[in-house]
């Protein structure tokens, strides 16, 4: 079966695209699929580091496009999973080194042999975004429950529609249920109301994500913690399963109450 090519983008930087690509790649590969992750952020590569594969880079995306290596030579196999591969970005070039049609050609070469191709888009709306959108069958937009992130997500969703790759689906990352409860954070209902796109994932704020990046060991590898589970759920939805959105807040409450009982004298 031919691969589905998914581009993960956002407009705003730092909202969690790379984390999403890494963890969705892990989740899909853990479910038995053959997955290739491509880092489209030429000049500012990070997918390698988040996946913990930075020491294994020999060739990169630009080497493939410029003919210095064969496609497979640039694909780093993640030894932790049966079939997860990374094509890293070049670090010493910029987004002009690759064109949208280069990306389309590259992805066409991957279509037959793999199940999923996940492309990590850079922030912004310029060449890097255009490069990574070009081959997409489907676009996921990542945002945070924060005014500038949502505004940028709206712009990106509009651009995705204009490129006829829509409708995009939304991942809301770094949800803080405590702040929502206090009325100090936009809810997913607020955000969907404003952006008018389908929600595919809600990922709670989770310290484990930074710890995971510190170690180069994506959270979803052990389904550790809330974010790990949330990414696993998104992968299942991508595969067509109907997974209800987990109420991480409820679980938080129970755990907090339990720990108060077990630790007299408070937290």
């Amino acid at each position, binding site marked *: 079966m031919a691969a589905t090519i998914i581009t993960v983008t956002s407009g705003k930087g730092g909202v969690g695209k790379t984390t999403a690509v890494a963890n969705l790649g892990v989740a899909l590969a853990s479910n038995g699929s053959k997955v290739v992750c491509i880092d489209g952020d030429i000049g500012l590569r990070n997918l390698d580091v988040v996946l913990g594969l930075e020491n294994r880079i020999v060739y990169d995306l630009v080497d493939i496009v410029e003919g210095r290596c064969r496609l497979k030579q640039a694909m780093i196999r993640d030894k932790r999973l049966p079939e997860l591969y990374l094509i890293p970005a070049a670090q010493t070039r910029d987004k002009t080194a690759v064109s949208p049609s280069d990306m389309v050609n590259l992805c066409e070469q991957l279509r037959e042999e793999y199940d999923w191709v996940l492309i990590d888009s850079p922030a912004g709306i310029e060449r890097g975004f255009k490069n990574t959108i070009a081959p997409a069958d489907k676009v996921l937009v990542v945002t945070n429950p924060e*005014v500038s992130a*949502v*505004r940028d997500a*709206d*712009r990106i*969703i*509009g651009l995705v*529609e204009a490129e006829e790759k829509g*409708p995009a689906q939304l991942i809301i990352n770094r949800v803080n249920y405590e702040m*929502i409860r*206090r*009325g*100090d*954070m*936009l*809810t997913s209902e*607020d955000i969907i*109301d*404003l952006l*008018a*796109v389908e929600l595919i994932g809600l990922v709670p704020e989770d310290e484990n994500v930074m710890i995971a990046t510190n170690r180069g060991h994506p959270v979803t590898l052990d389904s550790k913690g809330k974010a790990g589970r949330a990414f696993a759920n998104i992968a299942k939805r991508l595969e067509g399963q109907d997974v209800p959105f987990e109420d991480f807040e409820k679980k938080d409450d129970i755990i907090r109450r339990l720990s108060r009982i077990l630790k007299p004298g408070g937290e």
Partner: protein
Amino acid sequence: MPAWMDKISTGKQKSAVKAKERLKFVLIHDRTDLSNETLDKLKNEILEVISRYVNIDPNAVQITMNQDGREQRLIADIPIKSQSKGRNR
């Protein structure tokens, strides 16, 4: 009233509510690329054209930009006075 009571009595709005309000405004204007100034001009010209054909009370007119999914709608609600134009009272 002591200062601390002011906060309670003004019913300080939750910041998330404020965020949503502001985003609604910003998104409509981002999407249509219409500045407030241009929108005002647009409203005035609409009123001008309509009042050539019928009597209207400009103060009762409501012209707003609303969001409808991914689309934007300009909605004009213009009460028309029953007297026809030009007839002497």
